[in-house]
C-alpha cells in the first residue's frame, strides 16, 4: 500500500501508523465549565470508545512517523483500500477548532 503524504510524496505504508476514524471530536469542556459530570463523561465516552465500522470510504488518521511526523487525514475505502485523498487537517480532532494565528 502506498500513501501520498502531502509533504513527502507517495511513500510505503510502513512509514505510517494508523489510528483510525477521524470523525470523533474531542469535547471541549474546561475543568470549570459547570457542565454536569454525566454529560461531560458521556461526551468523552463517545469520543474515546464509539466508532462506526464503515465498509466503504471513511476519513481516518494516519501518522507519518517515518517521515515528516504529520498527522494526516486520509479518505480510504476500507473495502478496496483505495485512497481518495490524503491531507493535513490541523484541528480536525477538536470540537471547536481554533486555527493557528487566530
Amino acid at each position, binding site marked *: *500500500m*502506498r*500513501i501520498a503524504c502531502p509533504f513527502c510524496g507517495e511513500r510505503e505504508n510502513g512509514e505510517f*501508523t494508523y*489510528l483510525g476514524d477521524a470523525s470523533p471530536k*474531542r*469535547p471541549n*469542556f*474546561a*475543568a*470549570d465549565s459547570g457542565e454536569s*459530570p454525566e454529560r*461531560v*463523561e458521556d461526551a*468523552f*465516552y463517545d*469520543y*474515546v*470508545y464509539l466508532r462506526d465500522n464503515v465498509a466503504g470510504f471513511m476519513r481516518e*488518521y494516519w*501518522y507519518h*512517523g517515518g517521515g515528516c*511526523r*504529520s*498527522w494526516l487525514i486520509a479518505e480510504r475505502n476500507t473495502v*478496496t*483500500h*483505495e*485512497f481518495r485523498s490524503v491531507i*493535513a*487537517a*490541523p*484541528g*480536525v*480532532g*477538536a470540537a471547536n*477548532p*481554533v*486555527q*493557528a*494565528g*487566530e
Partner: protein
Amino acid sequence: MSGYTGSEPLGRTAALEGSTPSARSQAASASQSHRLRSGGLIDRQQPLQFSFDGKVMSGFAGDTLASALVANGVKLVARSFKYHRPRGIITAGSEEPSALVEMRSGARKEPNTRATTQELYDGLVAQSQNRWPSLRRDFMSINQLAAPIFVAGFYYKTFMWPAKFWEKVYEPLIRRAAGLGKSAELPDPDHYDKAWAHCDVLVVGGGAAGLSAALAAGRAGSRVILVEEDVRVGGRLLSDGGEIDGMHAEEWVRRATGELASLPNVRVMVRTALFGVYDGGVYTALERVNDHVPVPAPHQVRQRLWRIVAKRSVVTAGAIERPIVFPGNDRPGVMMASAVRTYVNRFAAMPGKRVALFTNNDDGWRTVEAIQQAGGDIAAVIDPRGKVPAEYQALADLSDLRVLSGGVSDVKGGVDGVRGVIVTDGNGRKQQIDADCLAVSGGWNPNVGLSCFHRGKPVWRDDIAAFIPGDAPRGMVMAGAARGEFSLGACLRDGHAAGAAAAAECGASGNAGEASEAGDETYAISPLWQVKAKGKAFVDFQHDVTASDVTLAQREGFESVEHLKRYTTLGMATDQGKTSNITGLAIMADATGRTIPQTGTTIYRPPYAPVAIGALAGHHRDENFHAWRLTPSHHWAAARGAVFVDTGLWKRAQWYPQPGENDWLESVTREVLAVRNGVGFCDVSTLGKVDVRGADAGTFLDRVYINAFSSLGVGKARYGLMLREDGIVMDDGTTSRIAEDHYFLTTTTAKAGPVMAHLEFCRQVLWPELDVQLSSASDQWAQFSIAGPNTRKLLQELVDPSEDMSNEGFPFMGAREVKLRGGVTARLFRISFSGEIAFEISVPARYGAAMAQNLMIAGRDLGVTPYGTEALGVMRIEKGHVAGPELNGTTTADDLGLGKMMSKKKDFIGRVMAGREALTAPDRQVVVGIKPIDVKRRLRSGAHVVPKGAIPGPQTDQGYVTSVCYSPMLEQWIGLGLVERGRERFGEIVRIHDPLRSEDYEAEICNPVFYDPEGARQRG
C-alpha cells in the same frame, strides 16, 4: 570446480578431462539416450554433468533438470505424498505438481524444488524425496495397499482421540509416512536481498502477448518492467514455434528482445517470478539470481525479493494445460501434451520413443506434429470427439495415423514408466496400445491467479470450457492466453492493445507502433474432465487426491469448494493446485448436478509460487534481525566488559562484572553500594527527549500532563505524569524549563516513539492554535545519571569552577546549562531516581564517549563506579519509584500513588475518563511494597498475592508482584506489587502464591519506599 558435495563424488572421467570440447559433447550426447541429434535451445558445446540419486548423467547448457532427466531416459523421479506411488515429470513449467526433488546438500539443501524450473548446472546434485530406502524400492509404498484407509478426511476421522496421542504418536508417524522433502537443519549460508523498483507499466510474463505489450508500452515512451519467471523470454513460442510477421517465431523473439534492450525506458528481468499483488499497485516478485550455479559468487545474493511499484500492470501469464482424470494418469511417462512439445522442441529431448496422445481439443494435436518432426512414433491419438480436426487432417493422411475415439481407461506400467494404454470406446470395447509415453491434454486454463488476489472472481467461458479473469485488482489488465485469447495472432494483438492502453493511461504519448501479425489457429474443445473407470485416478498429484476422494467429500456433505479443498486437501500443496483445482471442482460439479460456474472457485491468495522464508527475511536475520541502537558510551562500556541487555532496539549496559565476581548479583550489589556510599554513573541516553518550544509551550504541557508546567520556574525541573485519553497512565518523566519559551521533556525509553506521536497528535490535531513546536532530541543528547553522596565532589572536577554547585546554588530539582572544564556547554538537571544526591548531565551526543571517560577521570579519587540498568532498577525499587512493570497500561495515577498530582484546576488529556467509577473504586489494586517474612526467601515477580490463609484462586486473588530485587540496603529480597486496597494494608501478612514456580510463602505488605522514606539524602 564441479562442486560436488554428495555422497558419491564423481568428477569427470579421465577420458573426458583430456578430450576436446567437441569430443566431450559427443560423449555427452551419446550418454543421453533420449536426446535428439539437433535442434532445441540447448548448447551442445557446453556439456554439463549432474547427478540424480547418486547416478551421474550429463546434459547441456540450456537444460532444466527435468529436461536433462528426460534426455537421459529417466522416468521415475519421485514418490507421491500419501501413497508413495512412483511418479514422473508431468509438466515443463512452474505449475509442476509431481517432479519435486531435493537440491544440493548440507546447509544449502533445499527440498521440494521443481525439477522443471531448476536450471541445470555443472555439478548439480539432486535427490529424490519421500522414499526409503530408495526410489525404486520404496518401503512406504505399502501405503497403497492400505489406500482405503487413506481416503479424504482420513486424519480428521482417525486421529481425533485421545488428543495427547496426536502430538506424540500420530503426527510423527504420519509425517514420516507422508510428506515431501526434508529441509536443511543448518543455518542458510547464502544472502538474500530486497529491492524496490518503480515503473509505469509492469508486464508480467514474456510470452508472445507479454513481449507485444512491452514493445507497445516501451515504444510509447512509458517506463516498463517486464518480468519473466523463465531464464529467457518467449513463453510458448520457445516450444511451439509458429510464424510471426513472416518470420520464424524464434527470430521474432530475438528481434523483440533486441528492440526492448535498445529502449532505455524498458527493463527486462528474467528468472523473476511475480508472486503477489498488493494495494496501490505494489507487486512482489522473486528473482532467482544464483539458483543456477552451485554456490553464489562472493558478495552475490542467492535470491532477491522485489517490490515493484507500477501505475499499471499488464498480466500476460499465459495458460496452464490441464490433465484429464483417468485410472493410472499418474504413471511416470504420462505427461501434459504441451510439456511433451516443450521437451521435444525446446530441449531436444524425447519423453518417449512411442507416444500416445489423449486429447479433447485441437491444441493437443500439435503434439502429433512435434513428435513426427522429431522422428518419434505416434502410437495412437485418442480423441473422444472421434475425428481429426480439419487443421490436422493432412498429418493424419500423411502418416497413417491411428485415431481412436473413446477415452483412456487405464495405464499399464510401473516404476519404469508407461508400458501400455488401455482405451475404452463408447461401446465399452477395450484395446491396449503399446506406448512408453502418454501425452494428455484436457484443454487450457487461463492463468487467472494474479487477477484474483484481490478477491476478483473468475468468470466461466463456455466456448473454451475455462474460467477467464473477472474483476482484476485496480490498475491491472489481463491479456493474451491469460484472458482466454489462445491463438497466436490474438495474443499479439491483445498484448499490444493492452500495453498501448496502459502506456497512454500513464501519460505516455509516443507511437506504440503496430501489433505483430500471426495466424489465428482454431481451438475447438469438447470438455472432458474424467474418464470414469475402475482404479486410482488422480486429480491432485502432489497431495494424492483422487476422483473418488472428491465424490466421497460430496457424499459426506462437503460440497462447497472451500470445504472440498480442506476436507480432501485438494490444491493445498506447494503447487497450490495449478493443475488440479479446476478439474477437482468440475468433478464436484458433476457429482452435485451443478454447473461448474455454480460450483465456483476457491479463493486465490499469494504467493503464486513458493517463496523461501530466507528471501522474505532478506538481510533481517541473526544479528541484523532488527536495527540496533547503541548508547553514546556503548563502545566504552563494551571495552570495560559490560553485559548488555536488549531494551527495545537499544543495547544497554546491564552491569559491569569485575574480576572475582561470581555472578550478576555480586556485581549489581557492588554497584548499588558504590552509589549509596560514594558515587556512580549510568548512561541514561536511551530516555526519549523532546524539545518543546514556543510562547504556548507551558500551556501545551499543562494539557498533556496531569500536573502543571506553566507554573514551573525557569531553571527548574519537575516530574510529570501523562495519561491516555481513557484515563490510564501513558508515561512519566522529568521535564525542565530551560527558558521562558523552551522546555526539555523526557520520556521513558520504551515510550519515546509513542509519546512523540501522541504529542504531535495533540499539537496538530487538537490544538493547532497553540504556538508550540516539538522536535525529537533523543539522539542529539548523551545523558548520564551521576548519583551518590560524592556526586557534588565529582562534578566540581568536571564543571567550570565559575559554576556554583552548592546546595543553594544548584538546589534539588534545579536545571540549567553549565559550562564544563574545557568549554563544552552541558545541561545539568538535579533529579534523582536513586534517592541519592544525583544529577543528570546532558552533552551533545558526540561527546558521550568522552563524557564517560571524563567521569572516570573526575571521579578517580572518589572510587567512581559505572553502574548498569540492573543497579538502576534496584535503587528505584528501594525508593519505590514506579517504572514499566507498574506503568503497564492498566494503572491510573492514583494506583501508582500519584493521584494527588492530578490538577483539578485545568483540563488535561485523560482527566474526564480518569474520574470514571471503576477507575476510582476504593478496591483497586495499588502500588505497595512487599517483603518476604523469611529474609532468605527470594521474591519473584509475577507471583500472586492472596490473603493469609486463603485458598489461592480467582476468587481470592488480590494482585501480584510487579518488580523485585535483592536490596543491598535491606539485605533481603524486596519488591513492588499491585495489591487490592494495598495502601490500607501496610503491615498485613499475605500469602504469596506462585504456581508457575511452585512457590508459596508469606510476605508483609509495606510502604513502597523502602529506603530513606523521608527523602533527606537526595536533598542534602
